[in-house]
């Protein structure tokens, strides 16, 4: 009888595992397998790692990590990884600097106004991401809205070249991922107990000092969550650097695309993807450890 009772919940807990295995672990293993093979002119365009089950044990000792060593040898990949991480890092900082005041303002707004403000942050999601990035081309191009406005105001007499530069990529990434920064920050600021601020004031702390000593430290979980939500997708971003960036813009997402669709070198492309994944797992693990530590010391 006891077993019958626990069967339902057990199935329920297995559903997310099954989902992860089918849609994450299996594709990951397939990509990993491809990354270990040799490119060929065939369909699919890579040599099988092992032909039969019996073959596995023979081949496993002689697996080729040539594609990975190749990534280390060609400076292009290292530069692309480095540049992607840097662009994502700077974008995350910018999104934080812009997002924090927005989230703070929302959390301190009159209670009735908050759902409306929240809606305004979420609203852009109702339009296709691709269309919104395209729209930035119209704004940033030499004869675009921004330059026309600056001409009209009289700030410039030569059009600014923004489109097809890294600046356009930063603008695109910060614009696109800002809500992912604002929402977790808002959540952590909004649920903060306001009597803590009164207590700080009561003990002689000025409003500015209270912010740095109480409000900001207590919003740190939101800062971490927002930073991860911006940083991780920004590292692998392809659409924004492709549409807004120029030839100087080197990002791993574009390199990956070129490897797959122009060079048709699936094994190297797979290796690029696996390394990217490994690079992104590191900050997540660090973040989770930090959170666990925070919970422990509490």
């Amino acid at each position, binding site marked *: 009888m006891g077993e019958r009772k626990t069967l339902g919940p057990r199935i329920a807990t297995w559903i997310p595992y099954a989902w992860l295995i089918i849609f994450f672990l299996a594709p990951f293993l397939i990509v990993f397998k491809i990354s270990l093979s040799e490119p060929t002119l065939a369909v699919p365009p890579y040599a099988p790692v092992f032909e039969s089950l019996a073959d596995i044990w023979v081949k496993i000792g002689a697996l080729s990590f040539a594609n990975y060593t190749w990534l280390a040898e060609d400076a292009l990949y290292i530069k692309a990884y480095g540049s992607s991480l840097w662009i994502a890092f700077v974008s995350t900082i910018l999104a934080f600097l812009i997002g924090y005041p927005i989230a703070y303002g929302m959390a301190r707004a009159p209670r009735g106004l908050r759902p409306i403000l929240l809606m305004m942050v979420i609203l852009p999601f109702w339009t296709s991401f691709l269309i919104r990035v395209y729209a930035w081309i119209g704004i940033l191009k030499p004869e675009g809205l921004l330059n026309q406005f600056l001409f009209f105001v009289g700030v410039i007499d030569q059009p600014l070249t923004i489109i097809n530069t890294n600046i356009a990529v930063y603008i695109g990434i910060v614009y696109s991922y800002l809500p992912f920064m604002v929402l977790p920050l808002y959540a952590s600021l909004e649920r903060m*107990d306001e*009597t*803590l601020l*009164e*207590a*700080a*004031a*009561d*003990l*002689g*702390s*000025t409003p500015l*000092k209270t912010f740095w*000593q*109480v409000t900001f*430290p*207590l919003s740190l979980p939101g800062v971490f969550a927002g930073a991860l939500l911006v940083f991780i997708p920004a590292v692998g971003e392809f659409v924004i650097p492709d549409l807004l960036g120029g030839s100087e813009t080197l990002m791993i997402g574009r390199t990956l695309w070129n490897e797959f669709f122009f060079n048709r070198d699936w094994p190297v492309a797979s290796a690029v993807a696996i390394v990217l994944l490994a690079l992104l797992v590191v900050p997540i693990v660090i973040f989770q450890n930090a959170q666990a530590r925070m919970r422990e*010391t*509490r």
Partner: protein
Amino acid sequence: MKAALGAVRRSFQPWADPAAKPFITFRGVTKRFGQFVAVDNQTLEIFEREFHALLGPSGCGKTTLLRMLAGFETPSEGDILLEDKPLAGVPPHRRPVNMMFQSYALFPHMSVEANVAFGLKQDKLPKSEIGDRVADVLKLVKMEAFARRKPDQLSGGQRQRVALARAIAKRPKVLLLDEPLGALDKKLREETQFELINLQETLGLTFVIVTHDQEEAMTMADRISVMDHGRIVQVASPAEIYERPKSRYVADFIGSVNIFEAEVDNVTPERIHLATTDGFDVACDADIAAAKGQTVWFAVRPEKVRISHAAPADAGINAVAGEVWDIAYFGDMTLFNVRLDSGRIVRASAMNAARIVEQPITWEDRVWLSWSADAGVVLLD
């Protein structure tokens, strides 16, 4: 030591001295939230080293009064003065008052030590002095062993102590306590009440406490302000409030009381004679300005009502007969609910001084209730 403190306590009555200067003055203070009047044109004087309780049900304005003193709310009208200096325009972080919050409001990301040091750090005291003073107050509240803990590693009682330590660390001129014992269980609450009294004696601070618990106010305070709907209805010592309530509201709010509606029959300089609507006559020692025929109320507390099988000597006055309706036995005392012929239930309590009583009063007994002429009070309101 205890006895000496008690002696000081007994003679501490600055409010009775017309030359004494108040420490805190609320002068015609009104606070409105939109249409709602939380505090309605109230004046109150609190003296230095006084333990003052603001007592009333929730929504009576007591917390608003406290928050205005701390600076979290601004009076809509009137002034608040501390040592004769108006507090208007002084922000909370510059007021020499500290508050212990009902929720304790401890900073969750700081250790006990850091919480207590927070106020001292704002004053830019030297590090060594901060350390000494933190150690001192933690010792005072017996929390020195928990200095490195975070607030959520503490029990409710321990958190309450830390909140208290943090509030007294700056040696404020006035300590404000907002329902400080509300979250504690009964036993811990009683212990803490006495600790608070001793602490106040030791530090020589002025305490203003907000509470809805009349027992708490009675135990701790020098004086109590009883509040109702934004008004202070009576300010007096606990004994005065209990024995000489000014209105039915105060009499009923503090302790248990029997209240009878009555008509004034006759007034002499030292006595007032009443005829209650329940059909018995009362003679009461009271110098109250009431006219013959006026409707007043007679209030008498259960412990001042005698209960007996035999009729008292003068059954025509200050006595009424009834039937025992219910008995609650508390061990040290017994509470009787007696139903009068008019249908009203009257409470009378008796101390259980003897272990064995020959003829105990029991359910459905016909009994007499009686009281002396100085047992009750006459209320005009």
